[in-house]
């Protein structure tokens, strides 16, 4: 494992000072379920200075705000999200999703912030290949075994998929993220937080968080009435694995008419893939299982699978059919 020094700041401001001092050599350490493995894998972009934010008191909470929304500190454990009665009551689809993240043991350690900002799980990167995210200039996933963890929707330089589930499930709720930065608080939508295909401070990464910024809070707006939502995930193994394809779908209803829709696929692209073509198709339609065939026809028409992963698109469309059927049955 790469040798590291650990700082234990007690405030966000102190943590930002330390991160600013060490530049890209430092990184935020919370649950460690991603970071420590990156260190163990001796990845070139893994930090040498860890800034442990666990001692910071005000980053681990789930609380209702005055408007009826919910604020979540990003050091909150995934298991705490899964067990939260408040979240179960207000955002059941999000809880459904976090229960499918990894294993119970890892959910006890990993945090919401870590899930949102985790590194990709490409086997070539983790195997120490000199790829775009590890000091090289070539994507081995694009030409090697890309059955599981690589994009079927095209890519730019790195073809690994964004692996997180929480972001996929937060987007349908129009959740927002807050970043503490040296110049104050920055607020972004989750789509803006993990847009994929970018280089930040010399590193190719899926998210926009800079070396001296800390993701501190996720804000869920008050749940809308008459929304039905569902999350489903297909994995190479039944448990403990990243999605080959996942779907978060939320339909807002007026009577039986769909007045608004959110359709977000995970595991198929370098970012949570919001499928606005399906959303637009669904709006104004009467919710019924029969919609699934037409929805599948308009979904993912821009797919660009690699040699071994066209099945991801079939899986994603299957999840769409399943989601629509499930939500219409709940009527």
């Amino acid at each position, binding site marked *: 494992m790469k040798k590291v020094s650990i700082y234990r700041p007690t405030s966000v401001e102190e943590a930002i000072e330390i991160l600013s001092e060490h*530049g*890209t050599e430092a990184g935020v350490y919370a649950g460690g379920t991603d970071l420590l493995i990156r260190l163990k894998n001796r990845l070139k972009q893994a930090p040498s200075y860890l800034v442990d934010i666990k001692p910071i008191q005000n980053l681990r909470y789930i609380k209702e705000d005055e408007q009826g929304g919910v604020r979540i500190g990003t050091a909150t454990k995934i298991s705490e999200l899964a067990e939260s009665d408040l979240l179960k009551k207000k955002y059941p689809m999000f809880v459904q999703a976090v229960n499918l993240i990894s294993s119970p043991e890892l959910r006890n350690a990993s945090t919401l912030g870590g899930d949102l900002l985790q590194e990709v799980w490409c086997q070539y990167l983790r195997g120490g290949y000199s790829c*775009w995210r590890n000091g*090289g*200039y*070539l*994507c*081995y996933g*694009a*030409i*090697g075994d890309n059955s599981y963890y690589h994009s079927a929707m095209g*890519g*730019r*330089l790195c*073809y690994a998929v964004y692996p997180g589930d929480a972001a996929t499930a937060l987007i349908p709720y129009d959740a927002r993220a807050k970043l503490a930065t040296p110049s104050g608080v920055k607020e972004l939508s989750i789509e803006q937080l993990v*847009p994929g*295909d*970018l*280089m*930040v*401070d*010399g590193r*190719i990464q899926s998210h*926009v968080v*800079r*070396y001296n910024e800390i993701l501190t809070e996720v804000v869920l707006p008050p749940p809308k009435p008459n929304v039905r939502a569902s999350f489903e995930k297909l994995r190479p193994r039944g448990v403990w694995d990243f999605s080959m394809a996942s779907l978060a779908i939320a339909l807002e209803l007026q009577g039986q008419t769909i007045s608004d829709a959110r359709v977000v696929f995970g595991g198929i692209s370098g970012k949570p893939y919001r499928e606005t073509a399906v959303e637009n198709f669904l709006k104004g339609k009467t919710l019924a299982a029969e919609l699934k065939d037409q929805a599948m026809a308009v979904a993912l028409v821009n797919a660009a699978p*690699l*040699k071994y992963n066209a099945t991801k698109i079939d899986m994603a469309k299957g999840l769409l059919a399943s989601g629509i059927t499930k939500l219409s049955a709940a009527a």
Partner: protein
Amino acid sequence: MQLIEGIFFEPVGCLAEFPPGPFLEISSRLFGRKKKTSASGSRAYWHLLNLIEASGKNLDGPEKEFAEALEMQAVAEAKVYEDVAPALAELKKMGARLFVVSSLSDAAAKSFLDRHGLNEFFSAVWSRDNARGIKAAPLQAGLAGAFLQPERVMFLADTLESLSVAQSVGVQSILMMNDPDEARRLAMHNPSGGIVSLHELPDFLRVVAAENSGQLGTVRFSSGGPTEI
């Protein structure tokens, strides 16, 4: 990787899919080789270059005319990749100097550019005629002609031979990963980098430029250039 100032393109295989037939015909008629029907245009072309090199002779007189006529036929049948024109336009806009560096005849290389409307993107064309040689010779002529340092130049390669030529000259060998199986084999030969599509080349240059500048910030790929968030 050092800051890239120039990019060398071999049209065969890197800008267009060429038919193998004409190159196989030249190999067969001038060097007595059996035609391999399964070869790609690119492999047939580089195989022909190996034969020319091994024979130690320059194509002159009737042989030159015969080869050139078949090369023109290959050019006429070549299918330019759909990402070529937009990628070249973006590279040019970014200030990269682009060159055709090819072992085709001068007439064939220029006909290729004319036929496909690509002339405007290239600063110069180096062929086996004006470079007076094949394989490494056009690259060396291109470097000398444009006063470029080899480590600041990319050469796109899609065969083992073209990779080897790039490495022998010292330019950055960038693997065109058109066929994943072939690319996987070629990736074992230590190319400097690789791209799946020419669309990625501008982003490749942005990454290298950002690394060399040492400046921190955000570069969003393929959205018209660096964007600060």
